[in-house]
């Protein structure tokens, strides 16, 4: 399992691994928003938590079609399916590798980009906390979507359409927690629900992903 994690991280960091893709997209979205809606700090600070969350979610979505498609094309998935490692564990590891290379950089970059959007002072902590709690769910759900569309050529469109509705609960509670935090209100209810969603998806989704992947490999 460690070997698989290490291999995925190495591949992501080497040329053509797509490590910076999500991060660059996140940066572009948040830099462009002030140009689009105007530079008034009052407007920006109201929408900042929501924009940052949507940007992180779309950045995550962007990298999903590489998650399993490359391994499918070169036969790695066939060989992993016949290896002693259970497919559920292999997919959990791949989701973890995806989070470490996509989700975690977004969490770390979010406070810096918050400055660009005049995020109010108390919001930074809760923005980071809500993203740290929510982005693992995005990776795990995304792995399910990638497993579902694995054999389909250019499955990126279908993948996005399938995964977006599953992302909505995470977005609602994540952005709500960040928004309440920015307004100086108590964000704990939203954070608890967000943590609940993340834990439930981490516990259950790998089984669903492995089941659909086995069908996809037939």
């Amino acid at each position: 399992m460690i070997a698989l994690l290490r291999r995925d991280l190495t591949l992501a960091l080497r040329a053509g691994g797509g490590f910076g893709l999500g991060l660059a997209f996140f940066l572009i979205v948040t830099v462009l928003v002030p140009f689009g809606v105007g530079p008034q700090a009052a407007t920006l600070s109201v929408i900042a938590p929501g924009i940052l969350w949507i940007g992180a979610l779309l950045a995550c979505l962007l990298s999903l079609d590489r998650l399993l498609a490359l391994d499918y094309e070169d036969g790695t998935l066939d060989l992993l399916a016949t290896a002693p490692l259970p497919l559920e564990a292999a997919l959990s590891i791949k989701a973890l590798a995806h989070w470490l290379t996509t989700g975690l950089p977004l969490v770390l970059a979010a406070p810096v980009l918050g400055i660009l959007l005049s995020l109010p002072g108390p919001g930074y902590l809760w923005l980071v906390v809500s993203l740290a709690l929510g982005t693992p769910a995005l990776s795990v759900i995304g792995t399910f979507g990638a497993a579902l569309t694995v054999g389909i050529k250019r499955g990126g469109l279908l993948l996005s359409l399938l995964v977006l509705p599953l992302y909505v609960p995470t977005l609602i509670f994540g952005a709500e927690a960040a928004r309440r935090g920015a307004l100086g209100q108590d964000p704990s209810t939203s954070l608890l629900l967000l943590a609940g969603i993340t834990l439930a998806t981490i516990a259950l989704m790998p089984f669903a992903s492995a089941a659909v992947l086995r069908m996809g490999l037939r």
Partner: protein
Amino acid sequence: MPLSIHDLTLARGGVPVLTGVSLSLQPGRALILRGPNGSGKTTLLRTIAGLAPPLSGTIEGAEDRVAYAAHADGLKAMLSVTENLTFWASVFGQKDINVALEAYDLHDLKDRLAGTLSAGQKRRLGLARLLVTGRPVWVLDEPTVSLDAQAVAMFAAAVRGHLEGGGSALIATHIDLGLSEADVLDIARFRAADGALVGASDEAFL
């Protein structure tokens, strides 16, 4: 423990391709599958490897004992030869990759990125992967594609070494591998009758 297959019916894309397949493979033996293109060799091998369920019939002695190799080698272009082999070795709980490098003469290439290898060299690396799995039953789908005569001989020697160690091999191929001791099975005789759709509807709708 022999690999034994009894009365297997297999479908590809919902259409049965093979029916009544029975065979048995003892440790230390190799079986070469022959048959024209589209006769179901790949389907049979994928089913034995556990990648696809059969429509009916039983497979014994295959679970967690099969090392499967097909047209795609599961190699990453941006990893070196050593990194690729070490990864597969640790997935299968093995450590030593030197035997595999030795058998396919890959020592000189071991620091090269797999993406820079020629097709034949990639294939050799893909086959070397079998040696680091430690699995007793090799299930190989056209293993010699893009290999030159010298590499085919390396492959035959590797298979022979595997058989001598008590392993067994099931190989689908169109060429002569120089494995005179291997049994040969022509799977054309298991061909399902045209239009037979026994139990196919389930598959078609999945």
